[in-house]
């Protein structure tokens, strides 16, 4: 009975393996001399581009006040129910402000919906990705941890505006 030739049968050259090894090694060699992508974290830190979605933070104006007017839309849209806002009245022109603003970082999924829905550009995704907690309560960030000076958030805000 004649042996049927299969499509996958190796040619003689292939059976010798040597050219294939050379091919593979040359790829390795090529990459060895290319610039590296890995970095020695945490000694060396990754600085993400403006499009990166790190933990959401509240924008603090130069005068130390928050932009947020406690409308509650971020809290409503948040698919993970991570945000709790309690509004109250203030003497400022925009009569409403958040007495309490908490994001539960264990719930947050970094989707950025809160940033997208905010009518005041008051909550934006920062570049902070270092989130580790030893206690559940520590993961609930209040206004003290959320308020970030607007100057530090400049490139994210510019990025957002360029896509409006």
């Amino acid at each position, binding site marked *: 009975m004649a042996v049927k030739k299969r499509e996958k049968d190796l040619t003689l050259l292939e059976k010798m393996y040597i050219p294939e090894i050379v091919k593979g090694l040359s790829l390795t060699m090529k990459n060895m001399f290319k610039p590296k992508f890995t970095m020695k974290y945490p000694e060396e830190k990754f600085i993400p581009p403006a499009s990166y979605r790190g933990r959401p933070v509240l924008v603090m104006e130069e005068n130390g006040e928050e932009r947020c007017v406690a409308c509650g839309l971020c*809290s409503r849209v948040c698919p993970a*129910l991570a945000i709790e806002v309690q*509004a109250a009245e203030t003497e400022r022109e925009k009569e409403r402000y958040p007495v309490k603003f908490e994001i539960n970082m264990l719930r947050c999924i970094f989707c950025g919906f809160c940033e997208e829905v905010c009518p*005041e550009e008051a909550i934006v995704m920062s570049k902070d990705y270092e989130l580790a907690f030893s206690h559940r309560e520590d993961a609930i960030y209040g206004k003290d941890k959320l308020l970030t000076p607007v100057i530090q958030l400049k490139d994210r805000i510019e990025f957002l505006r360029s896509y409006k």
Partner: protein
Amino acid sequence: MPKFVLDGKEIEFKPGQTIIQAAKDHGITIPHFCWHESLSVAGNCRVCLVEIEKMPKLAIACSTTAAEGMVVYTASEKALGARNAVMEFLLINHPLDCPICDEAGECKLQDYAYSHSAGESRFVEEKNHKDKRVPLGPYVMFDGDRCISCSRCIRFCDEIAKDNELTFVKRGDRVTITTFPGEELDNPYSLNVTDICPVGALTNRDFRFRARVWDMSANKTICTGCSRGCNIELWVRNNEILRITPRQNEEVNTFWMCDHGRINTFKFVNAEDRVDGPHIRKEGKLVKVEWNEALTQAASKLKKFAKNEIAFIGSAFATLEDNYLLVKFAHSLGVKNIDFIRHYIPSFADNILRREDMTPNSLGAEAVGVKPSQGGLNIDGIINGIKEKKIKAVYLIDDDIAAAFPELEEELAKLDLLIVNATNINKSASVADIVFPAATYAEKNGTFVNFQGRVQRLKPAVATVEDDRALDGLEMSRLDKFGTKFDRWAQGHKYDAKSSWKILSALSIEMGFKLKFNMAEDVFSEIAKNTKAFSGLDYDVIGELGAQSKLQPEEKIITT
């Protein structure tokens, strides 16, 4: 009945009815701001424009009376075009205030802007500015920017509250609302304007900024402020009542409720001085104990007194079920001294809604037998008995006898035994020997009978320790559905409290005669079986709007 055609559908109407009203009676809502079923027609918002065949121009549905054979289109190209144009005009000067406006989420302008407008503004000029944050009265705040000059609030004050307090001033795009010189918007019904204001121009100062409407659950129940028993909704977030709004019931309160009911009848539910768990007086102080201990002690102490040394005091604040169990309990012990305290304030009454009887259920308490049996003492007799030391033990539910009769406070402290079922530490509870934590009206199922003899249902809105929102059929907000015990916004306090009938039932078992019921509904079935006035009624028949019992109405029925 005559008929006309609305969007291709034949609709019957009563002669003289307007198109918008006839449509509403058939469940079709024609968009409107200024029109309100129970107010006069103003016809100034123009959003209800409809196209009528054979009419040269569009007509407003709120003031055009329907006629036999009329053919009306609400969604034709012309009608839609007009509506969009009206919306565009209204939005020219309306600020983009939704993020800071409390009305957001229940705002007619927001809803219509969503469904009937272009979605983009062509108006690039500076908007008009008017006064913001103007207190019109003790409870109502006005925001001139947001007002769309529909005049509903003015008509409400003139026609329903019968107190001309508000008026328009200035003209054209400068027109705004103000109170007459020297006047305040302080009529007893003032807060209703915040409900009917189609935008957030009038807001409730007691509720402003406290919560978003979409974060609360709305629970249908009854106001306990007076014997009218207005139908209301309790708005709850995180197990805390934040506001009350009226609910339509043509037989009782139509669309309205009074400010007293709205402001003063819910804050005690989440107050600091709530009784949380049973308490017993030990060495002069009320100490929290387990239910078992309190029940055993109450039972053994009660047994020590002769029948005529004990008095039971029911309550017109408690439900039919609570009072019924109290009566059964007293009769099982053979006690004849049983009555309840009346709370009448004649100056509170008016001929709109408010009644001089400040309790929600005095007709009901009497009907289930909270009155002295043959030879027993009524409330005056009981009070004298306490003073003369003939009455040595008193069991009081859901009321405050020491506050009602201040001269009695010391005598009460000297009683051999005072047991109270109290919601809060009030004057009587603070001198009691045993305090059982009573559930408030917002935490229990039950029924009240209002002054008309109408039986209406209470439904729980706030959960106690023994309730689970989902399993016990309480309304659930979005937050209730998804919150876990690790979320701070889901940790609202639950009090360890029970309806008085449950406490009495548990105590009866401890005493050796078993008044056993599983649910408030079972108690009511027994009441309906044994009391002619309520025969044929059950919770389903009563439903959300109540049902008339065979009780004679208290005096004449004052209608609005």
